[in-house]
C-alpha cells in the first residue's frame, strides 16, 4: 500500500485528490460525503461578486412583487446589494465554521475577486472563520479594449499583495491560461507571495443553437481531452516554481491524476468526473493511483512527482511544440 500523503500549501493532505470549487462543495452534507469517500481536501464553492449582485436584483424584484414591502425612498433597499452581500458572506463564513467542525480534511475557501476592493478584505474574515487556506479565483475580463495587458496583469499582483498583507493562511491563485506571457505571470504571482497556483480555471462558455439561431450555454462539464493544456503548463512550470501547483480541468480518472503528478503537479483538482460519477468515484481514482504506484514500485508520491516535467526531460521541446506542422501538411 503506497503512501499518498501530500503537502499542499503547507497543509498535509492524505492524498493529492482535491475536489475543486464547485456545486459539490457548497454544503456541509456533500463535503462530509466527499470526506467519507477519501478525498484529500476540498475547495469550497467560490463566493462571487457577480452572484451577490444578481441576488440583490432578484431580492429587489421579489420585494416589489410583494407590495407590502416599501421600496420607494427606502434607505435599506438603496443598499440592498450591501445587505445581501453581508448576508451571503455571513452564510459563507457559517459554512466554513460548520464544515471545519465536521471534517478533519483541510478546507480551502475560495473567493472570486476582480478588484482589490472589499473582496480582498473579506479574506481576513475567512481566515478568522477557520479556513485552512484561501484560493483566489481571479479573472479580469479582457473586454476593456483601452487597457493594456500590463495593467491587467498588475491587478492580479495587487490582489495577491493585498490578501497576503491581510492573512496568515496560505493563498493560492486560480488563473486562466489566457495571458500573453503565461509563464512569467505565474512566476510573478509567486514573487508577490502566492503559495500556490491552480492551473486552470474553466469558464462558462457560450454556444450557438443553429436550429433556433440562439446563443446558448456550452456544456458545463469538462471532457478528458481538455486536460492537455494543463498537462503542458504543469510540466513547463513545475521545475521553475517553488510554490505548489494544483492541476485542474479535464482530470477525470486515476490515470489522469498520475499523468499530472508525473508532470509535476502537487495536487489535482477534480469536479466534472465527480458530478458524473458521484463521490464514490474518488475511491476508484485512489485505487488506480495506489495500484499504479504498487506496480511501479513507488512508496510515496515524491519519488515520481515531476519525473516527466520539462526540466527533467531529455527533449524538453516536446512540451513546447504547438504546431502540428508536418502532421497537418501531410494530410491531403
Amino acid at each position: 500500500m503506497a503512501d499518498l500523503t501530500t503537502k499542499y500549501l503547507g497543509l498535509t493532505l492524505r492524498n493529492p485528490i482535491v475536489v475543486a470549487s464547485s456545486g459539490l462543495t457548497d454544503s456541509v452534507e456533500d463535503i462530509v460525503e466527499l470526506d467519507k469517500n477519501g478525498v484529500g481536501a476540498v475547495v469550497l464553492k467560490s463566493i462571487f461578486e457577480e452572484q451577490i449582485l444578481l441576488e440583490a436584483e432578484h431580492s429587489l424584484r421579489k420585494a416589489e412583487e410583494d407590495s407590502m414591502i416599501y421600496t420607494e425612498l427606502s434607505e435599506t433597499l438603496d443598499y440592498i446589494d450591501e445587505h445581501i452581500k453581508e448576508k451571503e458572506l455571513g452564510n459563507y463564513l457559517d459554512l466554513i465554521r460548520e464544515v471545519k467542525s465536521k471534517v478533519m480534511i483541510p478546507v480551502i475557501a475560495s473567493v472570486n475577486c476582480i478588484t482589490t476592493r472589499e473582496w480582498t478584505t473579506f479574506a481576513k474574515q475567512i481566515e478568522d472563520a477557520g479556513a485552512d487556506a484561501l484560493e483566489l479565483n481571479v479573472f479580469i475580463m479582457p473586454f476593456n479594449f483601452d487597457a493594456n495587458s500590463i495593467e491587467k496583469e498588475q491587478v492580479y499582483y495587487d490582489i495577491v499583495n493585498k490578501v497576503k498583507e491581510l492573512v496568515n493562511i496560505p493563498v493560492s491563485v486560480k488563473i486562466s491560461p489566457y495571458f500573453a506571457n503565461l509563464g512569467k505571470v505565474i512566476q510573478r504571482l509567486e514573487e508577490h507571495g502566492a503559495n500556490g497556483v491552480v492551473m486552470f480555471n474553466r469558464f462558462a462558455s457560450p454556444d450557438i443553437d443553429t436550429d433556433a439561431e440562439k446563443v446558448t450555454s456550452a456544456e458545463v462539464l469538462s471532457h478528458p481531452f481538455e486536460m492537455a493544456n494543463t498537462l503542458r503548463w504543469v510540466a513547463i512550470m513545475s521545475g521553475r516554481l517553488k510554490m505548489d501547483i494544483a492541476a485542474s480541468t479535464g482530470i477525470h480518472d486515476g490515470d489522469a491524476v498520475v499523468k499530472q503528478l508525473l508532470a509535476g503537479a502537487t495536487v489535482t483538482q477534480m469536479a466534472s468526473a465527480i458530478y458524473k460519477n458521484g463521490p464514490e468515484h474518488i475511491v476508484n481514482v485512489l485505487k488506480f493511483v495506489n495500484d499504479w504506484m504498487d506496480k511501479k514500485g513507488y512508496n510515496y508520491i515524491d519519488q515520481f512527482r515531476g519525473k516527466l516535467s520539462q526540466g527533467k526531460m531529455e527533449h524538453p521541446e516536446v512540451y513546447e511544440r504547438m504546431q502540428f506542422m508536418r502532421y497537418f501538411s501531410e494530410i491531403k
Partner: protein
Amino acid sequence: MIENIIDYLKEERSQEWRAELRKSLKAKERTSRERVKMPEEDPNIRNKSNTEVNTGLPIENAVLEAQRCLDCPEPTCMDGCPVGINIPKFVKKIEAKDFLGAASVLKETNGLPAVCGRVCPQEKQCEASCFYTVKLKKPPIAIGYLERFAADYERNSGKMAVPEVHEKNGIKVGVVGSGPAGLAAAGDLAKFGYDVTVFEALHEIGGVLKYGIPEFRLPNEIVDVEIDNLRKMGVKFKTNFLVGKTASFDDLKKEGYKAFFVGSGAGLPRFMNIPGENYNGIFSSNEYLTRINLMHAADTEYDTPVISGKNVAVIGGGNTAMDSVRTAKRLGAERAIIIYRRSEKEMPARVEEIKHAKEEGIEFMNLHNPLEYYADENGRVNRMKVQKMELGEPDASGRRRPVPIEGSEFYIDVDTVVVSVGVSPNPLIPKALSHLKVTDWGTIVVDKETMQSSVPEVFAGGDIVRGGATVILAMGDGRKAAAGIHKYIQETVKAN
C-alpha cells in the same frame, strides 16, 4: 366599495358651501397664482440650534394657497395618499377659513396630521398626483404645508378636540411599540372601546418620531400633544417594557390580553461590514440620533457621552442620513459631510431635506464610497479611505448601480462617522414568537386587508411589515390593523 367612495366624494363636493367657493374665483385666477413658499428659519441661525426649520404658513398665505386648488371633480391627489385623506375637502375648509373644520377633516383618516404635514414625502405622494403636477405641469397645491397649517392651527387654538370613544368594553388589547403605527392603532382601538395598553421598549413614547426624527424637523412637543390626546382617550402606556423579554406574549395573554398589534419598527441598524467599522466614534444613525434626541448626548447636564465631532462623515443618502448630518452640524461640526455612493438624483432622501442640508453648509460627497476606517492609538476613528464611484447600468430598481473607479481612493480626516445605510426589522418579536411567519427580509407576513399575521391574535404594521416605510404608511397600517383586530375580537373572542 370604490363606487361608494366616489359617490361620497361627489356628494361632499356638491354641498352648497363647496359649490359657492368654486364660484367665488375663476379657475384661471386660481391657476395663475404662484405656489406659496414655506417660510424658513435662516440657515445660519438654524444650523446652530434646534429651532424648527420650516416655520409654517401664515393664515393669509394658507388661504391663498387653498384658493389655488380647483376642487377637482375627480381628486387625483387622493390617489397618492396612503390613508385616503379627503384632500379637497380639507383644503376648501381652509379656503373658507374654517381651519378647525379643516383639522377635523384631516383627523377623519389621519390621527397625526401635524406630524404628517411635516415629515410626509408629499412630493412623491399626494402632490405628485395633483392636477397641477399631472396636467398643468405647474407646481402642485402645497398640500403638505396646508395639512400642517390646519393641524398647527387647531393645536394652538386651545380647542383641540379629543375624538369620541365608545363605551369601554373591558377587552384588553396590547400594542407593541409606540411609533406612528402603534399610536394610530392605539387611537382607533380606543375609539372602538378597547382597554388599550401600549408597550414601549425605550423610556419615551413616540418611537421613531422621537428617537429618529430630530427636533428641528419634528418638535417633540407636537408628538407629545398627540400622545396626551391618546391618554385622554384612555390609552395606557408602559415604557421600558420589552414584549418578548420583560413579559412574553403568553404572560400577557394570562393577564387577559386578547389581541396584539405589533408595530415594533425597523430598529436594527445595518452596517457596511468594512474594515475598521468597530472603532470608537463610528455609530449607526439609530444610535447617534437616539443618543442625541432621547438621551441628550449633546447636553452637558446629562451623563450620555458627548459626541460632537469636528469632522463628521455620514454614510448614506436617505432621510436618516440627512437628519444625522444636519444634527452633527448643529452640534458644532466644522465639516459635516454626506458620503453617498450614487448621485444626488438617486438619493432616497426628500428633495426638501437635501435642499435644507445644503443651505446649512453640509458638504455632499456623492459618488463616493467608504472602504476602510483607521483609528488613533486609543481606538478612536481618525481617518477614512473613500473611493470615487461612477454610475453603471440600472439595476432592478431602475437606479444606476455605482461602480468603483479603480485607483481613485483617497483619505479624509474624520473623528465621527455615522453609518446610515438602512435598517432591518426589529428581530425581537419574530424571535419571541417562533411560529410567526416572516419574509426573507425578516418582516412579518400579514394579510394585506386585515394586517393579521400567521398567529391569529397577532396583527402587525409599519416598518416591521414594510421594511422601511413612511410615517403615513405606518399609520395607515395601524388603522387597518385596528379594524382587523376589532373584527377578529368580534368574531372569535366574543363568540366564546
